[in-house]
């Protein structure tokens, strides 16, 4: 068979092509992505050490073992998550964001990085990135009530009330007893003039969660709009007691008490 002229030519050509293909074009699988692992026992010990230090609030010290793990397994979402939390605790939001970004790429459940990634961007003042990351989170799991709430809340913050309300409605349909969604829906309904429905919603929430600060604030706002200053002041005072650091409560309360707020709104 080898004496056939074509075979004599084709055989070495085919072999050379195979050599080229399997050695140059498609070389053996690079084991790198999974091969830089620290031996399992050592990795386990390092992580336990890192978690222990995190628990003890020794975040600076926790960086070392966790960074080592991250360098050994740069694509491990577990270490991204750990390090992101450490950087958050240290106030290093730049690094935190990077870890969450890596986490989003490598984690099988990237939504678990929400809303931390958005909040880290917010801490950096990168508001556009906040919006984008919230949208990304929503896109990961569009039927997850949490993701719906985060996205709707962000839209609401940006004044896109109609879109926010749509999402809240969708969220309420999926999770009718989700207080944050109900409160958000109440706020957006009130903003669109549907104060009665809004009042109904916050009342429902406050019935089961009388200490929900957001609900109290929303109630104060809605009741004030409806001219019911006394209960509005009561809600807001309660909210102030529960969350003294919540500055907006103080402002709202002052406004309602001076009756200016209502007038302005009217």
């Amino acid at each position, binding site marked *: 068979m080898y004496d056939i002229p074509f075979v004599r030519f084709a055989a*070495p050509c085919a072999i050379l092509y*195979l050599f080229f293909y399997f050695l140059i074009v498609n070389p*053996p699988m*690079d084991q790198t992505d999974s*091969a830089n692992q620290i031996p399992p026992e050592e990795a386990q010990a390092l992580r336990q050490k890192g978690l222990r230090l995190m628990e003890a609030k020794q975040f600076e010290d926790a960086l070392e073992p966790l960074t080592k793990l991250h*360098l050994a397994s*740069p694509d491990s979402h577990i270490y991204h998550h750990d390090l992101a939390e450490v950087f958050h605790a240290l106030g290093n939001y730049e*690094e935190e964001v990077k870890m969450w970004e890596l986490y989003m790429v490598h984690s099988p459940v990237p939504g678990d990085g929400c809303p931390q990634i958005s909040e880290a961007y917010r801490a950096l003042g990168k508001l556009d990135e906040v919006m984008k990351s919230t949208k990304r989170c929503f896109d990961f799991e569009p039927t997850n009530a949490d993701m719906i709430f985060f996205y709707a809340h962000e839209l609401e913050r940006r004044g896109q009330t109609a879109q926010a309300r749509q999402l809240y409605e969708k969220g309420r349909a999926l999770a009718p007893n989700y207080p944050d969604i109900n409160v958000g829906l109440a706020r957006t309904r009130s903003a669109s003039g549907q104060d009665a429905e809004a009042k109904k919603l916050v009342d429902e929430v406050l019935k089961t969660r009388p200490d929900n600060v957001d609900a109290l604030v929303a109630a104060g706002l809605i009741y004030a709009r409806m001219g019911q200053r006394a209960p509005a002041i009561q809600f807001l005072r309660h909210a102030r007691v529960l969350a003294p650091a919540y500055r907006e409560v103080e402002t709202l309360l002052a406004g309602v008490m001076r009756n200016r707020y209502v007038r302005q709104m009217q």
Partner: protein
Amino acid sequence: MNLLLTTHVSSLPAIGIALRAIIASFFVVTSLFSLLAFVPFTYEVFHKAELVPVLNSFGRMHHRLYWGVLLLAAIAFALEPLPGVVERARKAVRVRAMFWLVHVPIGVWTLWKPVFAVMVNGYSSYLWALAMLEPLLYLSLVLWWERWPGLRWSAQAAADDRRVFFAAACSAAFLSLVYSLVAIWRGQASLGLVDRVFGVSTSFVTHLLVCLALFVILNLIAVVAGWFRRPPLVQFAICYLFGCTVFFLTIRSMVFPSISFNGFQANFYAGALAVTVSIFLASLSVARHAPGAKSIESGLTLALWMRATGEPIVRTWRRVALSALALGIAAAAIAIGSAKTDWNHLFQKLTALAVWIAAFRLFYAVGLWKVAGGRHQTGRLLIAAFFLLPAYRLTEAGATAVWPRSGSPVTFSRFLDVYSGFDASFKIMHDALGSGAVDNGYYQFLSKNTNLPRSVTIKPAPMNLADASAPPASAADRSQLPHIFIITVDSLRRDYLAPYNSQVDFTPSIAKFAQEGIAMKNSFTRYGGTGLSEPSIWVGGMMIHQQYVTPFSPMNSMQRVLEEYDYKMFVSRDSILQTVVAETPKVKLLDEGVQTMNYDLCRTLTELEPKLDAASHGPVFAYTQPQNIHISAINREGGKAIDDGNYGTFYAPYASRLKRLDGCFGDFIQKLKNRGIYDSSIVVLTADHGDSLGEEGRWGHAYTIFPEILRVPLIIHLPASMRDRYVTRPEALSFNSDLSPTIHYLLGKRPIVKGEMYGRPLFTEKIDEQNAYKRDHYLVSSSYAAVHGILSGDGRFLYTSDAVNFKESWFDMTETAPSAHRATSSMKLEYQKLIREKIGIVSRFYSFAPLEGGK
């Protein structure tokens, strides 16, 4: 003339071959010497700094040597018989005469104007590089023209598949044996028994694979040649075409990237050199063949400079064994001997390639004798070659699976990277097969933006470290200004100094100096290699990758501030600082008349000491960059320790010279104290870069940015008046390029600007001030080739992109001896983007758009 007109034609005598080899070597070396003047980086290193003095001597003597070579050419012509046909012989005489008509005037002209004595960094050198290939080409073509008609080609090719297969298999075994022994010898401190077993077996299988691939190629050539009327002739031509292509690719992909020579000019020169050398070798093949009754049966045999008529060449096993032994010893001696002076394995790899050819020729000759004739078994041989491919893959997969059981802390692929550092022959194949490089433009981008040629015009970009309108220094009174002494020891490693390594006991003076001052614990250089690292110290930050943007003074922030404060400067103006440091009345030279490579700290400080009388009249600044422990200086001095001290695991030739340097440094400090100026001086001991001293087979600093090269010592002594006033964080990431901003700050220039391009003050009045300068990522680069990296995590993490070898690696710098890990796909994505961005920032600072290399 009658002698020349002989009508009897015989093969070229051995003396003729030898003469032509000498002539060819002369012109090839001249051409390469000229090329080194054209490439900016090699011009600085070889022509200006005279890294290899023999090359510069060659250039200076070239106009005389040229006449010697012409004389050899005359002898060669006299010895070489003319063609048998009288008419052709007469033409040959005229053609030979033309050679003298052209090349004698050139010789006369170079006597009048010896261009190679002092070459310029410009296109004229490139043209000379090309022009110097012409004599070789001319002589080769003359020989070819004279000899060609005398050759008789058989109408049928000899069946030598078995010979080729035999030669390929034996070469594989021979090469893997020789270079494995070299690897075991060189890596005895690093390679354990298991490592050796895995390394040697992998090396053998890989050699076998590549050699049998060569067999398949040669078989294909023979098949194609068989289609023609005179198969041996076509086989001969294709063999040389194949050789020429391999030579071109070797030059273009292995040699030129390592000196940052890219683009059309590189391609053109590589092509010209490959063609010229191939024609020269082919002409010798033709000339060596004695035209006789027998016709040429094998083009391959002729191409390998053997009798191509089927007669046996090597007759005894003893002779074969002796030849193999001699070749093996020579290969091992070259590999071991050149390792410490090599340019990141380049010379070892090139010589290994030459040994490949020699080994193949040797065993092919054996084949002529031993396995000639016999039945056609080509089909079976091809099948055997084919089955080696799955066998290779299976072996590799098996080794990867078994390897973890050896208890090695590194992966098998990582181990092979290490092993290849000791086995040059395996390294050629490992690098070629392991790179898996599909360049999406990134490596082209790096190459294009590295060592930008001077033909690319870049305007100077002023490095103003402090606001020009900043208030004058509070210590404007000149008598209160500190004296400043910066000693940048070329290639000084941090871990060879006592302040950084408790095991070091041979640098007591530096240890004491560090106790009196501050040793920055986490210091690096931004550039591997003196070419850019030394200028960056004066610049106080990053520079565009060109040697050099001129005039350089706008970038030289350190000289500017020293001039502003009226410092009297004493500077060892080495070959690089001749461009970087402007000649002004304030600059007085140290080491005047001393070659850069001979700068000796002891001599320089002895020269400086009496000049410090000037310190009583005003502030004094001194800078020197001694070469005492530079690897080429050590090798030039025989590569031996200079005393009988016991340096344990430290590299004694380096450590012993460092010990001497330490003594001189200590004496100088004492003299400063005796003069009473030590406590009013800023004294800095640092390095431009570190060095590889055998790590994983690496030596020197070539074009790499391994951790041991980027890490530098940085020890600073402040005047007493400043010690209480300023604070620092020794553990914070710092660079030697932070010195200029630091001096600015300490002289009272505030605020020091922040930005990617700038260094930072290492000392500030409040520690908080330093936080503002912190960056997440720092670009680091080789001075000499397209190798760039990112240093991040406060120096805990280093990522490198090597566009010479197409490798991406990362290092955990917290390890005692950080070793390269292969980068993962996600890391490549992230860090390649970062490196691109950073190079873009540096380029744009110079109002220069980075050259794109594709998508």
